[in-house]
């Protein structure tokens, strides 16, 4: 159910682009694409750039796929400048998403790591509790995507809202994910790494998984925290990621 199947790009029209705080919610015509499992990702063509950028699906309204974009580099800026009627190539869904067979879910997001949580909450159903952390009030406007979420802003950390007895499903910056994994080794974390292809071809996205360098696009991007502890080196804020793409 969560395999990449036969990787082929298809072109999709932009149907909308709306600001949410400093982020942009980019809506694309769904066409023949499956929305996939929450936490899986799509490679979006970044106009004018050589490589596509990975994004987890944020929302799946009827006939559309929506992605939350943080304009932190040339590729993500180009994506934020797209207007309705423009077209980009899309590949996906790719990788392995969240396991949904959890009894007491708690969704935890940090910054742009909020991206996969609205679609995840929809799949889990029953309005699961959500804890979000942002670095500023402006960024925290994105919490509007998850009505009812508990929200903290720097210097308060989202980990202060976590009950380690719950089944944590998280996405966010690496220091946050490390802190979550230390509290809840079984937590499901949407990890990120610079990624050129998304389907196992480039060998660029390796992280230390189960003590070995493995391709995140094939093994993850969602992994249990204990499989990632001991990760060799902090990723520099780089070109791309499943939640944060430059």
């Amino acid at each position, binding site marked *: 159910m969560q395999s*990449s*199947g*036969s*990787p*082929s*790009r298809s072109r999709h029209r932009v149907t909308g682009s709306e600001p949410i705080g400093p982020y942009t919610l980019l809506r694309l015509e769904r066409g023949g694409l499956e929305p996939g499992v929450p936490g899986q990702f799509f*490679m979006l*063509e970044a106009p004018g*750039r*050589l*490589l*596509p950028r990975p994004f987890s699906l944020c929302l799946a309204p009827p006939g559309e796929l929506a992605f939350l974009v943080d304009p932190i580099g040339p*590729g993500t800026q180009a994506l934020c400048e797209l207007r309705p009627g423009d077209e980009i*190539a899309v*590949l996906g869904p790719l990788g392995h998403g969240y396991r949904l067979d959890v009894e007491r879910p708690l969704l935890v997001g940090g910054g742009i790591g909020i991206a996969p949580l609205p679609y995840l909450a929809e799949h889990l159903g029953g309005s699961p509790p959500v804890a979000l952390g942002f670095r500023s009030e402006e960024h925290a406007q994105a919490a509007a995507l998850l009505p009812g979420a508990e929200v903290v802003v720097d210097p308060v950390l989202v980990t202060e809202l976590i009950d380690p007895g719950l089944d944590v499903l998280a996405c966010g910056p690496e220091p946050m994910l490390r802190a979550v994994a230390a509290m809840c080794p079984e937590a499901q974390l949407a990890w990120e*790494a*610079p*990624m*050129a*292809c998304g*389907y*196992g*071809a*480039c*060998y*660029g*996205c*390796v*992280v230390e998984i189960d003590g*070995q*360098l493995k*391709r995140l696009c*094939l093994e993850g991007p969602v992994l249990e925290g204990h499989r990632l502890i001991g990760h*060799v*080196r902090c*990723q*520099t*804020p*780089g*070109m791309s990621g499943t939640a944060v793409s430059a």
Partner: protein
Amino acid sequence: MRILNASGCLDALAAPEVARRLDAFVTKTVTPLPREGSAPPRIAETAHGMLNAIGLANPGRDRFLAEHLPRLRELELPLWVSAGGFCADDYAETCSRLSGIEAIELNLSCPNVDEAADSAAEIVAACRRATELPLYAKLSAAHPDVAEVGRAVAAAGADGLSLINTLRGVALDRQLRPVLARGSGGLSGPSLKPIALHAVTVCREATGLPIVGMGGIESGRDALEFVACGARDVALGTVLFADPGAPERVRAELAVAYAEVGVATPEDARALAKSPETVRKVPA
């Protein structure tokens, strides 16, 4: 003209459907011992290309032969195995243990290992003694005279050339730190095309050997330019990352590219690229 992948730019076991779009699949380079490869970050996008420092990550010769090669054979695709190492014997031993594949590509030019290898010609000569399979020498355009290297490996028994490998480069982040953990990496993508076209041109003239041309091919027009410079076949690398459908697309575009130029055969294309109007001598 056949379309292959550039070694290391596709995992046929992870994406068999993409591999089946090719006329032959070239493996990632196999070294005698397993290599975990470089620490991340391993890739960086540049203005018109990308850097990679994968570091020849591979399962090693024994495991490749025992586990990976049998699974690759199940794809029923013509297979090329890329062989690497750190001395001529490393390469020759790998060659002697390979059979039932279409060709061996000798990676004589990985930019992401520090160990100095024996000379390209010594390695090719040792491999020639070790196998009767076709041997393609993959060369770097970083050598000041790539045609000279081409001549040397041809004399040592190479059956063909793969041109070119990536070229070393560095990318810095906003804080001026190298993006890649390794510091430098191999530059690929459109930046390489003019350099690769030159290498193909001069190596074809110097050796007459069949050449697999690669370096920044994104379209059928790009492929035709390699053919015009003397490549018999082409390989796709970086373009596969963005577009796994590139083999079929490039094949379809190639026919259009021929028609747009108004030629029908590789020989016609080559004649244009070699015509006196296009090759001008610099006055002494």
